[in-house]
C-alpha cells in the first residue's frame, strides 16, 4: 500500500487482471515485498495473532449463529443444543467462548507492546488511535456476545452495563430505555444484542483494514525505535515475517487449545450455566475478566456519573497518548526511568484486574482508589513529566547496528520475557475468574478422586449406570433434567446403554403427546427422542410442592455449582486441569446432612442443616440413606457410593462430550506441537540468511 508496486505478473491472465484491478500488486506490496524491520521480536507477532483470532471468531460465530435462537425462552437451551447435538458443536462453542478471552489476551499484549516501544509516537498517531477504536469495538462486541447465552451472568451483566448509561444527566434514563427496547432487559434487548454482535466484528474487520493501511504507510516500529534508513535495516515481509508470525500463531494456538479442549469452563462463570432469572441476582456480579480493571475503576469513584466517566476515561486517555508522552526517544529500552514506571503501570493494571473481582467493600475500596489514581497518573503526570526531564540513553544509529549489538544475548531475554509475561497474564486471568466465582459461606468441599478428571479422564460406565438408577429412583421425583433425552443414554462416551436398552427405558414412561385428530392430548409410551420427563408440569407447581423452593433442573448442575479455590491454588489448577468443583460440591452436599446442627445454629422450620450448602439451611430433606437403592452389580449400597455415582452421572449429563473433547484435544495438541517445531526450524533456516 506504499508507493507504486514492483509486482510483475507472470502469466497472461494475471497481467490482464492487473491492468484492470491491481489486486496482485496490492497483496504483493503489502504482504510480500513490504519491508519489515529486521530486529522485530516475538512481541510483534501479536498483530498476526490478532488477525487470526478475529478471523476465527468470525468463522465460528457465523456458524454458531446458524444454530442459535435469539429468544429469551429459547436462547439458553439453543446454546446447550449446540453443545450437545450439533456435530462438533461443543468444539465450535468452546472455540468461540474461549476465543474471546484469547482475543483479549492477545490485544492486551499488543497494546502493552505498543506502550513499551512507543509505537504511538509520530508518525503513527492515527495508527494508534485506530487501535484504540478497535479495542473499544472489541469490548462492545465481547459484552454483547456474553449476553447471548442468556445465563444468569449474561442477564445481570447486561442489566448492570446498560445501567451505566443511566448515569448520564437528563437523558440517561431515556437512553437506557432505548437500549433495552422495553422497561427492563428482555427479549427486545436480546434480539438487538444478537444483531449488533453479528454486525460489530465486521466493523472491527473494517477498522483493522484501516489499521493495517496506516501501519503500511508509516511502516512498523521496532524494538530500537529508530526508523529504517537503508535496505540493510529491513527484510521483505515474505518469507521472513510470515514464517515468524506463523510460528507465533501456532504457539498461541497451543495455548488456546489448552482451554478449548481441557479447561473450557475455567474462563467462564459457573453462574452462567443457570438460565437467566430476572427475579434473582447472583451474589457476586462480576464481568468477564477482560473488563475487570475498568470495573474496578468504575467502582472506586464514589459517584455514579463520576465512576462511569472515569471508566470510559481510562480507555479514552489512551487515544491522547501521542500528545501526553512527547519524548523523542520511542523505545523504553533507552529510557531507564520511564521503563521502571512502565512496569509499575503493568502491575497497577494487573492489581486493578484483581480488585475488579473483589467485593467493593472495606480496604478494597481504598486500594481501588489509590490504584485508580496511579492508573491515570501514569498517563497524565508521569509520562508528560518524564518526557521533559528524563535524559534517555543513546539509541543505536540504525536497526542493523541494533541487530549486531544484540545478536548475542537476544534469545535468552526474549524467552525469559515471554515466560514472565505469560505467567503474569495467567495470574491476572486466573485471579479474575477465581474471584468471579461466588465465595459463599459454605464449607469448602473435600476434593474427591474422579475418573473423569485430568487430560485422559473418562467416565466410569458402571458409575454412570448406577448414577442413572439413583437419579431415576430418587432424584427424579423432584428434579427435572430437561436437557437430557433417552437417546443420550446410548450415546458414545455416555453410560453405555445399548440403543435397545435406551428404548426400553424410554418406553417405561408415559409421555404426553398430541393433540390427536380430535384435538385431545393423549399419553403414549416414551421414545428415545423424548426428553426425560419432568416431575412437575411447571416451575410454580414444583415450588408449591416443595415448600417454596423449586428443585433446580439437574441437567447442568455439575457445571453450575462452584466454589473459590483461593490463591495460589487457582493458578496451579490451570496447569493441573482441575475443574471438578461442581462434582466435589454435589458429592459433599449429598453427604453433608447432619441431624443436629452445631451449637448456636438454628435452622428455620421446613429446612435442614447441611454442612456444605451456602447458608447451611437447605429446603431439600436428606435425599439418600444406606440401602435405599438396590444395585444389581454388587457395589456397596452406601450413601457415599450413591453420592459418588449420581455425581458422576450428573457430570456426564452436564458435559456429555467430555471424552470426545479430551481425545480430540490430545490429537490436536500433538499435531500443533510438532507443527510448531517444524515452523521453528523452518523459521531458523529462513532467517539464517538475514542475520
Amino acid at each position: 500500500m506504499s508507493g507504486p508496486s514492483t509486482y510483475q505478473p507472470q502469466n497472461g491472465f494475471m497481467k490482464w487482471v492487473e491492468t484492470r484491478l491491481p489486486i496482485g500488486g496490492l497483496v504483493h506490496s503489502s504482504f510480500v515485498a513490504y519491508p519489515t524491520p529486521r530486529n522485530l521480536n516475538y512481541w510483534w507477532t501479536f498483530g498476526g495473532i490478532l488477525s487470526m483470532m478475529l478471523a476465527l471468531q468470525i468463522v465460528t460465530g457465523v456458524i454458531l449463529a446458524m444454530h442459535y435462537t435469539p429468544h429469551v425462552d429459547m436462547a439458553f437451551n439453543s446454546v446447550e443444543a449446540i453443545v450437545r447435538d450439533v456435530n462438533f458443536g461443543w468444539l465450535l462453542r468452546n472455540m468461540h467462548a474461549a476465543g474471546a478471552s484469547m482475543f483479549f489476551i492477545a490485544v492486551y499484549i499488543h497494546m502493552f507492546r505498543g506502550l513499551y516501544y512507543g509505537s504511538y509516537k509520530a508518525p503513527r498517531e492515527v495508527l494508534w488511535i485506530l487501535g484504540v477504536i478497535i479495542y473499544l469495538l472489541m469490548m462492545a462486541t465481547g459484552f454483547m456476545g456474553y449476553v447471548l447465552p442468556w445465563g444468569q451472568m449474561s442477564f445481570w451483566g447486561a442489566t448492570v452495563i446498560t445501567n451505566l448509561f443511566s448515569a448520564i444527566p437528563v437523558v440517561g434514563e431515556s437512553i437506557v430505555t432505548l437500549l433495552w427496547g422495553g422497561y427492563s432487559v428482555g427479549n427486545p434487548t436480546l434480539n438487538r444484542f444478537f444483531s449488533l454482535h453479528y454486525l460489530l466484528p465486521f466493523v472491527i474487520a473494517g477498522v483493522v483494514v484501516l489499521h493495517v493501511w496506516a501501519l503500511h504507510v508509516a511502516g512498523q516500529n521496532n524494538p530500537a525505535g529508530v526508523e529504517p534508513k537503508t535496505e540493510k535495516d529491513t527484510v521483505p515481509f515474505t518469507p521472513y515475517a510470515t514464517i515468524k508470525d506463523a510460528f507465533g500463531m501456532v504457539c498461541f494456538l497451543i495455548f488456546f487449545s489448552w482451554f478449548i479442549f481441557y479447561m473450557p469452563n475455567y474462563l467462564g462463570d459457573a453462574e452462567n450455566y443457570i438460565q437467566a432469572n430476572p427475579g434473582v441476582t447472583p451474589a457476586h456480579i462480576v464481568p468477564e475478566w477482560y473488563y475487570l480493571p475498568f470495573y474496578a475503576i468504575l467502582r472506586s469513584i464514589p459517584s455514579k456519573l463520576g465512576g462511569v466517566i472515569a471508566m470510559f476515561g481510562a480507555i479514552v486517555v489512551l487515544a491522547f497518548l501521542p500528545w501526553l508522552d512527547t519524548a523523542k526517544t520511542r523505545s523504553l529500552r533507552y529510557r531507564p526511568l520511564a521503563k521502571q514506571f512502565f512496569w509499575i503501570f503493568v502491575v497497577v493494571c494487573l492489581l486493578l484486574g484483581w480488585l475488579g473481582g473483589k467485593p467493593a467493600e472495606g480496604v478494597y475500596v481504598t486500594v481501588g482508589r489509590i490504584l485508580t489514581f496511579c492508573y491515570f497518573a501514569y498517563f497524565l503526570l508521569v509520562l508528560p513529566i518524564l518526557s521533559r526531564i528524563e535524559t534517555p540513553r543513546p539509541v543505536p544509529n540504525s536497526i542493523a547496528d541494533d541487530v549486531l549489538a544484540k545478536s548475542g544475548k537476544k534469545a535468552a531475554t526474549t524467552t525469559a520475557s515471554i515466560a514472565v509475561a505469560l505467567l503474569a497474564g495467567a495470574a491476572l486471568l486466573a485471579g479474575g475468574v477465581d474471584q468471579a466465582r461466588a465465595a459463599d459461606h459454605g464449607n469448602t468441599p473435600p476434593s474427591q478422586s474422579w475418573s473423569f478428571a485430568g487430560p485422559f479422564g473418562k467416565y466410569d460406565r458402571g458409575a454412570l449406570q448406577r448414577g442413572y438408577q439413583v437419579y431415576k429412583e430418587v432424584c427424579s421425583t423432584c428434579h427435572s433434567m430437561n436437557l437430557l433425552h433417552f437417546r443420550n443414554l446410548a450415546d458414545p462416551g455416555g453410560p453405555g446403554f445399548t440403543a435397545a436398552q435406551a428404548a426400553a427405558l424410554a418406553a417405561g414412561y408415559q409421555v404426553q403427546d398430541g393433540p390427536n385428530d380430535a384435538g385431545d392430548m393423549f399419553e403414549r409410551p416414551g421414545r428415545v427422542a423424548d426428553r426425560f420427563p419432568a416431575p412437575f408440569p411447571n416451575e410454580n407447581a414444583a415450588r408449591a410442592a416443595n415448600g417454596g423452593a423449586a428443585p433446580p433442573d439437574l441437567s447442568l448442575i455439575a457445571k453450575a455449582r462452584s466454589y473459590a479455590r483461593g490463591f495460589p491454588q487457582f493458578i496451579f489448577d490451570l496447569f493441573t486441569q482441575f475443574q471438578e468443583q461442581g462434582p466435589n460440591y454435589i458429592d459433599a452436599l449429598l453427604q453433608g446432612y447432619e441431624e443436629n446442627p452445631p451449637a448456636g445454629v438454628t435452622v428455620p422450620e421446613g429446612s435442614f442443616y447441611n454442612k456444605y450448602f451456602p447458608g447451611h439451611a437447605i429446603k431439600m430433606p436428606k435425599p439418600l440413606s444406606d440401602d435405599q437403592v438396590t444395585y444389581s452389580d454388587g457395589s456397596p449400597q452406601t450413601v457415599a457410593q450413591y453420592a459418588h455415582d449420581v455425581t458422576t452421572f450428573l457430570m456426564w449429563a452436564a458435559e456429555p462430550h467430555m471424552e470426545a473433547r479430551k481425545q480430540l484435544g490430545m490429537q490436536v495438541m500433538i499435531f500443533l506441537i510438532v507443527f510448531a517445531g517444524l515452523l521453528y526450524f523452518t523459521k531458523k533456516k529462513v532467517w539464517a540468511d538475514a542475520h
Partner: protein
Amino acid sequence: MTTASSAEPTRRDFLYVATGAFAAVGTAAFVWPLISQMNPDASTIAAGAPIQVDLSPIAVGQDIKVFWRGKPIYIMNRTQKQIDEARAVPVASLPDPESDQARVKEGHDNWLIVIGICTHLGCVPLAHEGNYDGFFCPCHGSQYDSSGRIRQGPAPANLPVPPYTFVSDTKVQIG
C-alpha cells in the same frame, strides 16, 4: 536475501515440504468440523425415527397426509377403480416405467403410500385431482396417476415411495 538453488533435494527442502504438508493437513482438518456441523444434528436425526400410523379410520377412497422427517406422506386407501386403472396402463408407455405392484405391498394393494413432493420442483401435489384419478401439482401442472406415477407435465419421475412396513393389517410403520 540469497536464493539457494540446488538440483539435489536438500534437508532444507525436506523441512519446507514437511512444514507445508502440516499446514495443508491442519487446514483440512480444521475445515472438517466447519462443514460437518451443517449436517442434521442429533435431535433432528432422533426426531426422524420411524412413525406408526393407524389406518383404521381411513375409508375406501379417502386419503390422509402425515409427516415424516418433515415430508408430507400421502396414505391413500384406493378404490378398486383406481387400482384397476393403475394396472391397466402398459408399463412401457410410462415416462418413468414402474408397475403398480412394485409400488405397493402385496396383500395390501389398496394402500398407496407415497411421499407427496412433486419430483419437478418440490411442491405438494393435490390428491384426487387431475386427469388420472391420482395427484395434480398446481405449481407447474404435473399429473400423477392413482399409483403416484408421473403421466403428464414437467416432473421427471414418479412420486417416491418411502420405506414402510405393515405392522398389522391396520397399522403401518413408516421409516
